[in-house]
């Protein structure tokens, strides 16, 4: 059932893609516009990191919403399939 739904959705997803290809047919090649503005080398200096006080609140909340955790605060997830 789920696969059928996915197939149906995949199919309906294609329509706009085909529509685009048609629409773009007559249009010239251009530079791709990835960003709304031309800006480069926006970097930030290294320096004193955030203090532990700033992070304690977030840490509490982060650990609280974890679906599974251990008492040290690690997130618990699946074991790797390739582990023997």
């Amino acid at each position: 059932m789920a696969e059928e739904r996915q197939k149906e959705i995949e199919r309906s997803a294609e329509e706009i893609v085909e529509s685009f290809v048609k629409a773009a047919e007559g249009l010239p090649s251009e530079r791709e516009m990835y960003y709304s503005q031309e800006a480069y080398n926006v970097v930030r200096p290294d320096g004193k990191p955030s203090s532990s006080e700033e992070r304690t609140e977030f840490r509490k909340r982060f650990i609280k919403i974890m679906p599974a955790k251990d008492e040290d605060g690690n997130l618990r997830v699946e074991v790797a399939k390739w582990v023997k």
Partner: protein
Amino acid sequence: MTKAKLDQLRSGELSPVENVRRALERISKLNPKINAFIEVNNDVVAQAEALERKLKRGKRAGKLAGLAIGIKSNINVNGLRATCASRTLEDYVAAYDAEVVKRVLAEDGIIIGVNNMDEFACGSSGETSAFGVTDNPAAPGRIPGGSSSGGGAAIAAGMCDLCLGTDTGGSIRNPASHCGVVGVKPTYGLVPRQGLIDLGMSLDQIGPIASDVYGAALLLEVIAGKNQNECVMLDVPKVSYADKLDGADIKGMKIGVSPQFSEITDSAVMDVIDKSIETLGDLGAEIVDVELPHIEEAMPAYYLIVSVEFFSATRKFDGRKYGKRIEDVCGDEVLRRILRGRYISQKEYRGKYYQRALQVRTIIRRELMAALEKVDVIVGPTVPKLPHKLGTKLTPMEMYAYDYLTIPANLAGICGGVVKAGKVNGIPVGLQVQGMVLGEEQVLRVMRAFEAVS
């Protein structure tokens, strides 16, 4: 109306607590039918009380002091659930405040609750929320538009004073038009996105929804301005718009209108728009024809770009750290965009689809920029057709068609606002005003001038 209410709050005629209580009452009465709010903030009365105490102590009142504000459910508000109206995040309690929320709180705005929306902002109708459809208070039984459906409806129903929505392909302007309220999509990079759950990173902007232009302008100036903690932002310091609206005068302004608009739009809608353009002419503006020959191609290009970006944005929803795995529980349109994005971003298809769409984007932007060199703003319809009745079955393509007129502004990164222009059979029609990059002032001026006489 917003200014009047602010005056009342400042003078003490109306207390923040009273304002908030009234809002809560209206929400409690109307929300069961309209479903504009997913969650109401239990803490509001206490916050309003704290504000009152602060004001009594003589502290400076923030620009939004005492106003009840709804926040769309894809924006992180610490302590409230940011669900994006999806089962994926239905239990995700936001672990931090979005930057815009910080700014609203800093100006003493009171966050009354979380607005309903189309799931993950993937929609233009307000029908795809996992928590039920939203009704249009200005045209009951019809869609309120989307994806900021809850925001538009809440303002239309007077449930709160202001709302923050988001706009990626029209998601603020579309519901503003359908619900007969005011909405603004700011210039890309003007408003911080830190804390906004992405739909399309290069397209999303957070913006105000309000009952009047003043309210929208005020909320916009609170949230706008450079955020040091964000890379892709315009280098703009604080801005002010609201105090420039008094006696907004558009005499001599050049207002562009494109013949392509009438080609795309239903005549009933276009009639209202044409009348509005006449009004603008009567106010002293010069109406100029502008050509936007490829405006229709913007829509399919947009859907390819947004699908790729959305696919990328949703990889973090793997269910391990919070919430559930998105593909397991999401609705059809969300899945559609993920699968489409996954498909067209493959190595062998990138050039043909994703990169080609970005080339079309360049063309669209160039056309709009060229037009905005000739005129101060471009004016026209917001949506090509009237909002359909709730429950009507539309194909994805029919749904996407609502976005024809709003998408170009997102692709180009320019700003656009919507103000109520009139009605067709009682259904609101919004006038869209688009302006240059960082041209919010002109856009708001035209909107205000129009509002003052309509």
